[in-house]
């Protein structure tokens, strides 16, 4: 009984912290239709700034007030300078921009405070324990629960009972109309973004004494907060509150009594909610951002484009002979990630679904090769075939739930499912090696040639890249590819013409998953090693960056993006420890200045040059 009460209270503590995150995320999304991946970073920054303030002033309470304000200021600067120019562009660019910022903030925290786990001191007045009848409980934790409930009530009063709150709700309902009545929507957006960020910062400080401070705490709170608003309903404060407490309690009890399968239960709950109420428990259906007004017809390849393709291929065949080992290996890696990026583009660019969980399928392919090789001694090429099949099956299963949604909910669902795959890779250490990873005993041979020779590796990966490119090119020129584009352009109309659109989206998702699995398997053959990092959500973010950087919706763009990203990463990381910040910054600039990606910009220039 005592244990039960203690667990319940612990669950409430975690739920309250989740609520501080989810409330801001949900408000920002509801009003601005922006999903900020940097929201976890603000939580982390709040905690670390709080620590700095405690170190200077010695007072937790000053930190609890000042740190959120400082973080809010940062958020406001980010909204005004970076997000605001992107509102006209749709949610993909905004998500990517905030993703770029997570790199920068992570690097910042790691540089200033290092990688060890720090702790905010519990304020003196709350250091003891309190007897609550059913056992003793930490005073600070009890305070947190009360504090969180108080904030929730205040938020509710502010939103439902004040004129500012009415303006926010009016803006959520119809921002354009609110502007037409003289509502200063730009100011409202900035205010709400700052306010939401302040709540995250507040959560960070409040969590400091219980959860600890470390780089990576940003994601550890962001993902469950996403699950909360998927379950509770986007844009609903009540949903954020109920969802937070549910997840907080479920997570705590699950970890106490069910250990490693706890996570599955949460994902299962999420899946059930989404199947019954796709908009979440308290959410309302919302209109997605309008599709682009850019004409994107579907011309097939011509003799001219084929000739250019052959020339490029000839160059790629000749290229390695003049290069030393290291660049050969780097280009081989680029080919593998080009395959991965093209597979993502099939759902992102051609079917209009933004996935932030594509690394899951890369991981399934990779682990199939590694596990079958290491545990069962199977040949890597058999492993590769098994990996493609496993990734396809995984994509079909996960896709079954995800394709029912679109837009931001799709993004969040794919993210959540990929984190599920990640948690399996991390926790099932006996099989996967967890975060330590596992290594292939020996490099396999390729038609009798040893892949330890860089030239063999180069041509093996080139061959798969060309095959994947041609296969996808074929698919996109075939009727099936046109059906995907039709769904991207106008899904209700496709349904009215007679296409079961869900089934087709699932086909696209499955094919993309299978090809991602191929890339993952090749990566293990190439690298000889795989760890759970390869399926972490940031890996999905990286591949999203590569695809968007090169230009989504084309087949040429993703390979270009993969090349630029990996070259940049290699060059930056060999010259500076701060390569994360450099990549993040480069990427932010790219989102701001090259909409449509590199290849998209090239095409635009060519289009302008043509009469």
């Amino acid at each position, binding site marked *: 009984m005592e244990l039960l009460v203690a667990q319940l209270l612990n669950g409430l503590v975690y739920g309250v912290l989740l609520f501080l995150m989810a409330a801001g995320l949900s408000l920002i999304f509801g009003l601005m239709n922006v999903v900020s991946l940097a929201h976890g970073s603000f939580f982390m920054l709040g905690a670390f700034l709080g620590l700095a303030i405690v170190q200077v002033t010695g007072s937790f309470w000053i930190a609890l007030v000042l740190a959120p304000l400082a973080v809010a200021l940062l958020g406001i600067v980010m909204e005004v300078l970076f997000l605001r120019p992107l509102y006209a562009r749709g949610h993909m660019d905004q998500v990517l921009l905030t993703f770029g910022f997570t790199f920068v903030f992570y690097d910042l925290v790691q540089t200033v405070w290092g990688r060890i786990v720090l702790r905010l001191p519990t304020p003196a007045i709350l250091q003891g324990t309190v007897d609550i009848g059913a056992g003793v409980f930490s005073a600070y934790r009890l305070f947190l629960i009360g504090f969180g409930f108080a904030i929730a009530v205040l938020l509710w009063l502010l939103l439902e009972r004040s*004129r500012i709150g*009415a*303006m926010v*709700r*009016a803006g*959520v*309902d*119809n921002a*354009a*109309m*609110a*502007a*037409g*009545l*003289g*509502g*200063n*929507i*730009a100011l409202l957006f900035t205010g709400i973004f700052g306010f939401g960020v302040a709540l995250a910062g507040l959560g960070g400080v409040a969590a400091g004494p219980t959860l600890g401070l470390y780089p990576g705490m940003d994601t550890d709170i962001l993902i469950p907060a996403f699950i909360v608003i998927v379950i509770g309903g986007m844009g609903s404060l009540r949903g954020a509150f109920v969802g937070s407490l549910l997840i907080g309690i479920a997570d705590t009890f699950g970890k106490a009594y069910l250990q490693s399968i706890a996570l599955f239960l949460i994902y299962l709950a999420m899946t059930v909610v989404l199947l019954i109420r796709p908009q979440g428990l308290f959410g*309302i259906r919302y209109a997605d951002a309008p599709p682009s*007004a850019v004409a994107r017809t579907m011309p097939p390849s011509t003799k001219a484009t084929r000739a250019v393709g052959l020339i490029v291929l000839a160059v790629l065949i000749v290229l390695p002979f003049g290069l030393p080992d290291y660049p050969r290996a780097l280009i081989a890696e680029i080919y593998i990630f080009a395959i991965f990026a093209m597979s993502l583009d099939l759902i992102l660019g051609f079917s209009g679904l933004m996935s932030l969980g594509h690394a899951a399928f890369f991981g399934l392919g990779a682990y199939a090769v590694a596990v079958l090789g290491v545990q069962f001694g199977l040949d890597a090429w058999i492993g590769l075939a098994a990996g493609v099949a496993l990734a396809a099956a995984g994509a079909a299963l996960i896709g079954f739930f995800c394709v029912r949604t679109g837009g931001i909910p799709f993004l969040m669902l794919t993210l959540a499912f990929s984190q599920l795959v990640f948690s399996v890779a991390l926790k099932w250490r006996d099989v996967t090696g967890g975060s330590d990873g596992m290594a292939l005993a020996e490099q396999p041979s390729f038609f009798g040639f040893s892949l330890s020779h860089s030239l063999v590796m180069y041509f093996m990966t080139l061959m798969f890249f060309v095959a994947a490119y041609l296969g996808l090119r074929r698919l996109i020129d075939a009727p099936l590819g046109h059906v995907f584009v039709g769904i991207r352009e106008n899904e209700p109309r496709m349904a009215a013409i007679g296409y079961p659109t869900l089934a087709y989206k699932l086909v696209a998702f499955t094919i993309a998953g299978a090809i991602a699995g191929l890339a993952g398997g090749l990566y293990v053959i190439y690298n000889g090693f795989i760890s759970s990092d390869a399926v972490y959500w940031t890996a999905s973010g990286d591949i999203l960056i590569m695809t968007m950087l090169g230009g989504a919706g084309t087949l040429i763009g993703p390979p270009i993006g993969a090349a630029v990203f990996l070259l940049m990463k290699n060059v930056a990381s060999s010259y500076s420890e701060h390569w994360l910040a450099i990549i993040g910054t480069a990427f932010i600039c790219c989102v701001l200045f090259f909409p449509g990606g590199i290849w998209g910009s090239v095409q635009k220039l060519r289009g302008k040059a043509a009469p």
Partner: protein
Amino acid sequence: MLDLDHVDAFYGDSHILHGVSFTVRDGEVVCLLGRNGAGKTTTILTVMGYLHPRAGAVRYNGRDIGALSPYAVARLGFGFVPQERGIFPSLTVRENLTVFARGGRGDDWTLERIFVLFPGLKARERNLGFQLSGGEQQMLSIARALMLNPSLLLLDEPSEGLAPMIVQEIVQILHRLKGEGLAILLVEQNLRVALALADRHHVMNKGEICFTGNSAELESNDFVLRNYLSV
């Protein structure tokens, strides 16, 4: 007070308005007529700052407002009633009225005065926006615009899709507003409504104004009635 001077406007690449010019003077009711796709709504959206003219000027009391955003335009004293009415569904009727309300000159519109003019809204004060019928939404949208105490009311097809009796009621209300000296720019497809209210009519076709005149001139111009208004 409002002056459009050879305005060209685009949606993306498509050229919608071609050199649209007209004027609304103090206390005047001006009507834009024309079929779907003629450019009437685009004209109103351009005045309100949702679209910005690529050529020509939109002037308000002599000041060029073409580059202003909707919120800045609204604050100059424009009361906007859009075609789809734009009721905030999750706000109550009362909140819809008060959320962006602003004080104006001497005899301001207040909730009390609004409820006298729109007794139906008083009865539904506590209802949420989405619980209203089409007619009630239209009344609320007009009332909400009045709560901004505007100098100029912009109405985009207030009669669209409403039962004849309700259209009559709205015409009477607009008549009273006209009587109080409020300037109104009205977009209509319903010729009876236009003839009942407007001092001057501009008929639009394919983004251009192809006829300008008073009610008598419009009624006697068979060519315009037949070709541009399908009456």
